């Protein structure tokens, strides 16, 4: 077991493109850690750098108490599960799982015994003599996991672990992964572009964009207090409403309405300053009669989400998305008012896009 400590990590490709740009990240021992970001943000490159599959251009990487910046992939105590599982099609499940042991010159009988034990732990009983091609996607993934944990690695790396499974299986595998990680207690880093997956699985999340780290925090932290507008827009199943406006008379003006500044930002903004006001669609209430502090608006689009309805509204030239309970579904063209939950609003600097307060 070991923590991971990356300092000023840089991965530069020929031509000067930086896949990973001066990233500092500390991953604690036994932590389930997510690298989250849109495609091309460098999250997979960072994972591969930790694995040793990409040569690090600058900075240092420490796993446990060992500097492994220049160590070979096989000498880092790290195991990795690839997005396509990378099972060897010509070996049966048992040989696949025991492959790391074969490289370590463990005898055949002991290899087989270990493979069976690990396979049992991952509910792969009776499949030990099958070939990967004869297994379902979920089973293949568990074989890949079994191969990775068979040697009891210090660190487990998972590249998009759920993306090759169909939607229903994904939920099942998610729970399974979380249980497995907790049972093994192994430091685990996984890459995902799906914020819901990261929120559901991880102890802590690192959000990345264009090779740079945007924020590290618990799922609750990155959801409730995003560092900047990028994280605010990326996290959450419905992106946060971000409205550029000005501070007037100590409040935020949305058209004619003045909304109080979020708690903790009083005194940090001055009148006339351009800011970005953020509120999640879930924290806006849609009412049909005027209330104090409510923003008048008109419904333009209605999208059904099942138990709730997502409506897009126009409010004095600003666009908002609002989640409405299914029983109060409005129709396009309806007029009403938006009531923000004051405690859930955020303020960002319009220029730096960083959170204020």
């Amino acid at each position: 077991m070991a923590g991971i400590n990356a300092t000023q990590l840089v991965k530069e490709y020929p031509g000067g493109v930086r896949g990973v740009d001066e990233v500092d990240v500390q991953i604690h021992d036994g932590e389930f850690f997510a690298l989250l970001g849109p495609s091309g943000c460098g999250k997979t490159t960072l994972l591969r750098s930790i694995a040793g599959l990409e040569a690090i251009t600058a900075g240092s990487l420490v796993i446990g108490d060992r500097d492994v910046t220049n160590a070979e992939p096989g000498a880092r105590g790290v195991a990795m599960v690839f997005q396509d599982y990378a099972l060897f099609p010509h070996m049966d499940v048992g040989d696949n799982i025991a492959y790391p042991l074969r490289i370590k010159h463990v005898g055949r009988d002991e290899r087989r015994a270990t493979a069976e034990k690990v396979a049992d732990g991952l509910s792969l009983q009776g499949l030990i003599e099958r070939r990967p091609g004869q297994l379902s996607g979920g089973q293949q993934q568990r074989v890949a996991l079994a191969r990775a944990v068979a040697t009891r690695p210090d660190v487990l790396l998972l590249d998009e672990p759920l993306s090759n499974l169909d939607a229903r299986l994904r939920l099942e595998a998610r729970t399974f992964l979380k249980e497995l990680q907790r049972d093994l207690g192994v430091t685990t880093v996984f890459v995902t572009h799906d914020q819901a997956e990261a929120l559901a699985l991880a102890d802590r999340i690192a959000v990345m964009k264009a090779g740079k780290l945007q924020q590290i925090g618990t799922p609750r932290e990155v959801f409730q207090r995003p560092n900047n507008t990028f994280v605010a827009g990326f996290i959450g199943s419905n992106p946060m409403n971000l409205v550029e406006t000005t501070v007037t008379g100590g409040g935020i003006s949305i058209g004619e309405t003045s909304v109080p500044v979020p708690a903790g930002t009083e005194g940090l903004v001055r009148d006339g300053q351009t800011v970005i006001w953020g509120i999640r669609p879930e924290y806006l209430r849609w009412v049909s009669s005027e209330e104090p502090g409510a923003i008048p608006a008109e419904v333009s689009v209605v999208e059904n989400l099942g138990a709730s309805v997502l409506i897009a509204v126009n409010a004095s030239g600003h666009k908002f998305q609002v989640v409405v309970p299914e029983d109060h579904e409005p129709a396009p063209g309806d007029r009403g008012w938006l009531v923000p939950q004051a405690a859930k609003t955020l303020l960002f600097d319009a220029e730096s896009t960083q959170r204020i307060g």
Partner: protein
Amino acid sequence: MTTSTTTPAGSAIAPRRRRADDVAGLGTVRAGIFVAPALILIGIFLLFPAVWTIWLGMTDYRLTGLQAASPEFVGLDNYVEALTDPSFWNSLWLTLIFVLFSGIIGQTLIGFGLAWSVRNIDGWTKGLIEGLVLAAWVIPASVASFLWLVLLDRRSGTINGLLGTEGTAWLIDHPMQSIIIFNIWVGTAFSMQLFSSALNAVPPSQIESAKMVGATGWQQLRDVIVPNIKGHILTNTLLITLWTFNTFTPYLVTAGGPNGKTEILSVYIYETAIPGGQLGLGAAISLIMLLINLVIALAYVRVSKGRKKR
């Protein structure tokens, strides 16, 4: 609504012609007409010569003399003569050595080695190496053999100049080695290209999985690369074996000499049939050669089928 009545009426007026139930919907006769020209050409240029060779092999047909005018049927005499002639067995032995060293070992291994080493090179270096190797393959055999005659020349040869071995007569002192290297030089490009594309098809994540558990380059080759490209290796070996077995080009370099030391089977047949004038005997040996080809091909099909079953 009127649509419900027009539909059956319309189909009654113009009953659809029954489509033949083969893929193209042509029917046997029309399909046959389409294929006929190709079949006729194949018949004239492939089938007829083959049958003609079988017939020739059972006559005492000669290039000149009495038997050229009226060859006589001699049954299996030619086969008996060929199979009891030590020079036939010597030629077959030379052919096996030639196939083994220049084809299976030389072209396959060097081709794979080249493909393996240029795999991670990018840009003009890779293009240059591939271009050079391909050039050897593309150059007409007659040009290539003349090139090698110049290279290996005793007095002013390039090889002697480079190695400082003036006066060495490679084609006389080391004739078999010379044509083996010549054939490797000519044919390696094919293996290299085939293995290049095969290596590209190996999933990188499998190689990286092996790397992650600390597999050495050799172990990656053994556990990941070779199992993944087994089919390609088999196909390549078959083609190289057959091509090398049947090639006539070495004749252009050594003419089977000196003293029959490079008289591989194709050259032996030529020497028997044309300069030797024994067309009947030559045809018989040709047929034996064809049978050996068939055995090689069948063995390959066997192995490849067994592989797929597993």
